[in-house]
């Protein structure tokens, strides 16, 4: 009696599909979130039973229809951790009681708190809103205490070339307003358009100049009512939403303190391979699908129509699936895996399918060296003729001297060590030393 694989049931709640498999001793499920899915197709390539096929990615990217980006064949799916382990967008999740700690492809990100100021730059830069800066700076009103009247005179100017839009001055004082850009776009990924000071509200306390990390603000108070100005203390931290972050590394470049380190989940390259095929009317599929908004239109139409900020690309390959004209090419050279676990061997085999230029292992048969037949000994007739005379006396003399020599401790050390070179120099001395005294 052979056991049949239990039927996989599907449940749809909002934009999440749950595939469940019920065994006698165990129930496990796979949750697929359409919202999180990008349509990269990594799960489809990795699936060990080829149960996942890509949906109509091109139409989804063109915003023509709304549909799930992947289709999981319930008859084939075995509900395993493999698909979830390659999904860097956390769209596929494997759940069961006491799940095994199988490997995952993931990048890494780390903020060095000794270097972090903190400031708002990484939060504003992140294209996926994965960084949240919680910054506590006491309000200017609490820091500047007037004893009696409230007035001041001075001048204030912000050098726009130096300002990096860290946002600290804005948190500090209501007089400063930054014109933030909602979604930074390539190629510069600017996070703000400008910064303005409302001089009516400014009382030239000079706190903003102190707080500015790039000395972009120049303030001078000519005269003011008597007041005490306390030093501002900046406290805060950056929290990373690990479910959302896909390790593109944009924040790494933008952080003025170089406090962030990140490693991508894949190494590889992305190219606009066939720019001549790009749709003249601008289909924008790649723009729509890229989870990091890395595509932009070039200023000079003589090159390609579109360009990609490849430094931050994580090589998911969604754009290749979306492009109707095969304009783009993504190659993955390697992947980053979390920890060393017993399953790494089989999982690495599976992950290799995601890498281009992957050749499956070829089993080689060991070849045994062909032995040569043993040669038969050739006997020579050695006559029993009279033995030739020998200078045995001289031999005895010399061998006695040799025996004395090798009883010498220093010589024996050389012999044991096999240091024949130094024995050679000894030899010269032997020949010169006619009295043949031992050394």
């Amino acid at each position, binding site marked *: 009696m*052979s056991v049949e694989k239990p039927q996989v049931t599907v449940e749809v709640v909002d934009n999440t599909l749950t595939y469940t498999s019920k065994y006698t001793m165990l129930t496990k499920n796979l949750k697929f979130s359409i919202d999180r899915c990008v349509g990269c197709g990594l799960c489809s390539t990795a699936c060990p039973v080829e149960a996942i096929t890509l949906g109509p990615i091109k139409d989804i990217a063109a915003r023509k229809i709304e549909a799930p980006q992947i289709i999981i064949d319930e008859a084939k799916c075995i*509900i395993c951790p493999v698909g979830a382990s390659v999904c860097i967008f956390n769209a596929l999740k494997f759940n069961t009681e006491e799940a095994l700690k199988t490997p995952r492809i993931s990048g890494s990100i780390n903020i060095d708190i000794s270097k972090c100021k903190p400031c708002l730059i990484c939060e504003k830069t992140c294209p996926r809103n994965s960084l949240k800066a919680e910054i506590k700076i006491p309000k200017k009103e609490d820091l500047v205490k007037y004893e009696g009247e409230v007035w001041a005179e001075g001048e204030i100017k912000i050098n726009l070339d130096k300002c990096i839009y860290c946002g600290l001055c804005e948190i500090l004082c209501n007089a400063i307003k930054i014109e933030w850009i909602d979604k930074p776009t390539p190629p510069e990924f600017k996070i703000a358009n400008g910064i303005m000071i409302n001089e009516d509200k400014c009382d030239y306390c000079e706190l903003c100049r102190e707080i500015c990390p790039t000395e972009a603000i120049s303030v001078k108070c000519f005269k003011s009512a008597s007041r005490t100005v306390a030093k501002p203390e900046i406290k805060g931290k950056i929290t990373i939403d690990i479910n959302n972050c896909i390790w593109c590394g944009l924040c790494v470049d933008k952080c003025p303190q170089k406090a962030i380190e990140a490693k991508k989940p894949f190494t590889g390259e992305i190219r606009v391979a066939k720019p001549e095929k790009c749709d003249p009317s601008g289909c924008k599929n790649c723009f729509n699908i890229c989870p990091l908004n890395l595509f932009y239109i070039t200023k000079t139409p003589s090159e390609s129509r579109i360009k990609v900020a490849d430094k931050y690309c994580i090589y998911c390959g969604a754009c290749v699936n979306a492009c109707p004209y095969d304009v783009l090419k993504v190659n993955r050279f390697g992947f980053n895996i979390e920890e060393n676990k017993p399953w790494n061997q089989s999982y690495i085999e599976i992950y290799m399918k995601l890498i281009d230029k992957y050749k499956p292992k070829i089993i080689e048969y060991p070849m045994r060296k062909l032995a040569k037949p043993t040669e038969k000994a050739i006997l020579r007739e050695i006559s029993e003729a009279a033995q030739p005379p020998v200078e*045995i006396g001289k031999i005895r003399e010399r061998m006695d001297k040799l025996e004395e020599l090798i009883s010498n401790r220093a010589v024996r050390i050389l012999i*044991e060590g096999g240091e024949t070179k130094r024995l050679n120099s000894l030899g010269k001395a*032997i020949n010169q030393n006619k009295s043949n005294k031992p050394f």
Partner: protein
Amino acid sequence: MSKTACLICHCGTNIKGVIDVEKLKNEVKKRYGDVLVYNNEHWCSEDGLKKMGEIITRDKVSRIVIAACTPSLHEELFKKNAEKYGLNRGFVEIANIREQASWVHWHNPGKATLKALDHILMALEAVKEAKPTNIIRRPTERSVLIIGGGVAGINAALNLADAGIKVFLVEKSGFLGGHMAKWDKVFPTLDCSICILGPLLSQAYNHPNIKIYTLSEVVDFSGMPGDYIVKIRKRARYIDEATCNGCNKCLDVCPVELPNEYEYGLNIRKAIVKPEPQTVPVAPYIDVENCIGCMNCIGVCDPKAVNFKDTDKEITLSVGAVIVAAGFKPYNPIEVEEYGYGRFLDVITGAEYDRMLNCNGPTKGRVVKPSGNGEVEKIAFILCVGSRSERLGRPYCSKVCCMYTVKYAIETKITNPKIDITVFYTDIRASGKMHEEAYKKALEAGVKFIRGRVSSVEKDKSGRLRLTYEDTLEGKVEKELFDLVVLSIGIDPDPDNKKLANMLGLQLDEYGFFTEYHPKLKPSDTFRGGIYLAGACSGPKDITESTLQAGLAASRAAQFLHSGEVEVEVIAPEVDKNKCLKCGLCVHACDYKALKQTPEGILVNETACTGCGVCIAACPAGALKSPKKPTDEQIYSMLKAVLEERKDYPLIVGFLCKWCGYAAADNAGINKILYPTNIRIVRVECSGRVSPKHLVWALKMGADGVLVVGCREQDCHYRTGRIKANRRIKSLKELLEKYGVNPSRVEITGVSASEGGKLAKTITDFVNRISEIGPIGSELIEVAAH
């Protein structure tokens, strides 16, 4: 007044037929007037031993020299006999005049006699300096380690366990049974293989005295006979053997599919492995390198036997004896290009055909073409593939192939009478019980037997295979079409034998099988006390012979442990404080850290010492005194005895290590391989025991050449003894050159214990070379002439 007796053995005609034993007696008496000389047909017989005893007691003899066969054979017997009559075993010397004289120099009886005389004179001089041997008794562990869970290992295990001895059985794969469990039927009874083996496996698995470790290997081995310390690494099974109920549901639901090595790639297996339904143990194991962690197996396992938290374990055991039953590997015929194995799917090996016939196999017992093109109407069996072949490096006969081919032929004819079977043979070797009758039965069933070699297997246009062969009895060359070609492959040694041999200190022969102590009389013993061999790991054999050898190994192991203690010779050297220069060379020379340099002097750790003698050879002052023969004084006396009156020209002195060099010389004797008589042999523990001093003495006293024969560097039984000997000889050769002596007079080489032919050739070449150089001292005349 201590009397010495010289006992010359005739060994029937083995010695007497070549050597003039009367001349020996007279020459000995001429030189040693007070030595009593006796002859006997067989000193090793009941009568001979008694006579020896009478001589000891009646003549008040205190030293004996026995001139007979190799000491490796009867040394123990003679020594025990001497002790029985009150003479300490240390005063018994053996002179080898059979394997190293009469059996290898029958082309020149006159010179053979002179060589035998020299060996006797050496022994007489050595025994003068003999000292009593100290024996201490050490307790033994009453347990045995068996390496290998095939038919030999299981048989030995049951034999020992039923006798009340605790057994630890270590099996590399996940299940017991070895190769026999894979076969469908066994010859000639045509019993179902697993049906007769299965009950034994279950019995062993459930026996209170047997502890079985599957998925386990021996990773470390140390200690002495009677007290071996073994480290075993047990790989994680991930299934609890105790709770698994063998329902096999997990096998059905595992999604991973891989080529099945058990079926030689004929079908697939899962990542949870259980090759057949009735394995022992019943629990499968998980191949974690291919498992994807989907947990389907956990989902169907009612007794909750799946445990992914399992880890590899290391277990240390203390055992008294070891039986090696590591089995064999079927030959891979891919290098026999003319038969097309690996190129044509329809050319398969005998092992694969057996799996095809097996009702639990990949085709459930149907005979099919693996390529799938059509029905099987004609099968060709080609014998001697990978056996009896110089070209393939396997000149031995694998013993089982003729009979298993006859078995397949009969089996196939019973289930598929319409299939036409042809067997291409060189000989049909059917020597066992009922084997010849089975061959007759195959002939009667209509199986064609054609004597001749198949020269090639090619693909025909029709998709069938075309064999070109010579029918030697008809005297014709023919071509014929077949559907299926089965190559009757031979038995290869398991490639892991080398690692195991290194660890246990055992020897392999030139093909890679384990070497037994004596192929006729001690086929189960090895050169290491307390370690025995069983099964095909020591050479090709069938199931009957494996069972026989396993029984013998079990009996020997039980005998070894029976008394509860083992006698061990005291072997550690002593330091003469007056001579010691405190240079520390001996400390550096010892691989076992048995010597330590302290402010008071050199200290010897007796339990760590293995008695190799490398330290004694390293000492420049001769301050280390060895209790083991030969001592430096004995070597000096032996050389003097041989070289005082040189009986041959050129005269070579050979220092042969007892493990390989001396054993190879004995092997040459057993195989009656001729080589020149010009060598006189001194038996040493290790080539590392030979000191440059000994070589200088030999040359000084008039030897024309000195040959040191040890083990091969990687096989040295004392780790780096041979390498140290290499260094010393190399340095000495350079010094000799400085002193005007031709350095080619001294040579060191290595052989394996079964390479008698190679040693004979080495000695012949060396003797030829020395005779070209001239007698010792002749090069000095030339020097003087310049």
